[in-house]
């Protein structure tokens, strides 16, 4: 059974408690000053945490070799999305063996829950969740990302190549 130690007369003045607390803090301060590199705080704007490729961040619409969108507007991602935040309008492509392509591909990022189901649903690896973390924005800005924001935004450097390649699929006779 634990014995409760009554505070002694001396500590009633709180001076010793305050001093020990202050001592601990000062000790930490000097310790940190000397071991700068052990501090694990990530100073956000300058230092960035390196995310792995599997991180489910902002969407990327992959492109084919000739730079056009890999997406064939099959609406599977829009069907599978639990938050129903993807809206696609399809159109007929003039090249007969590319029959269908999206004119507009919009993701309402405010509704999106970044679950990655669209990435799983896509049969041709046209949409991926990139390593770059979600971007906050002021109230007035445009939260419905369209094709050039999803596929051709500056830091994607002209678009990310999709794994599924048409010529190779045709060669295998699919």
């Amino acid at each position: 059974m634990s014995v409760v130690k009554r505070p002694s007369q001396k500590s009633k003045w709180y001076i010793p408690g305050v001093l020990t607390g202050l001592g601990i803090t000062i000790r930490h301060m000097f310790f940190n000053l000397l071991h700068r590199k052990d501090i694990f705080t990530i100073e956000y704007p300058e230092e960035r945490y390196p995310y792995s490729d599997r991180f489910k961040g902002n969407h990327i619409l992959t492109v084919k070799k000739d730079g056009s969108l890999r997406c064939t507007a099959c609406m599977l991602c829009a069907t599978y999305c639990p938050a129903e935040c993807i809206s696609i309008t399809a159109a007929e492509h003039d090249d007969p063996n590319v029959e269908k392509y999206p004119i507009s591909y919009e993701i309402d990022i405010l509704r999106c829950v970044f679950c990655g189901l669209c990435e799983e649903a896509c049969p041709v690896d046209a949409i991926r969740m990139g390593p770059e973390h979600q971007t906050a924005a002021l109230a007035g800005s445009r939260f419905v990302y369209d094709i050039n924001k999803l596929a051709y935004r500056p830091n994607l450097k002209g678009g990310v190549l999709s794994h599924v390649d048409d010529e190779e699929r045709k060669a295998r006779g699919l």
Partner: protein
Amino acid sequence: MSWLAGRLEDVVRRLEKQNQFSWLIPNGCCGHEIKNARLATYDWERLGVFKASHPEQANLLIVSGWVNSAVAEEIKVTYDRMIKPVCVIAIGSCAITGSPFDTFDPKRPPVTVSSLIPVDVYVPGCPPRPEAILRAILELQSKLNPGPSHREVLHEALRD
């Protein structure tokens, strides 16, 4: 003397806008992300956001999590009691559009924060990473003090 007072006035006004005293309604999983942003690893105090002990002393309201009737009540009351001008950051899809738990029933649409109080910055994500929350803080500060932030000024100076 009035010149000095004027300069002092400018500095105080600038700092006043620079520092936010945040009052949190950290519901749901986004609450934990806010905690990450607040504590050691990301530490938003570096950006000048301090913890207010009472809503009346706070000028930044951060809301996250699913808005049910009780939380809606709390948001409205807190918002009224905070000192104006209040900036509001809504974090996470639950607060912004209620999409994760939306039943798409036209008769019972989800209650969202923007339907209760005017929101300045939205942070999409479910939950958004702490960097996104810090990005929101920076966006808010760039909105409050237009022009290059002191951070950019400092970098400019360091560079040349």
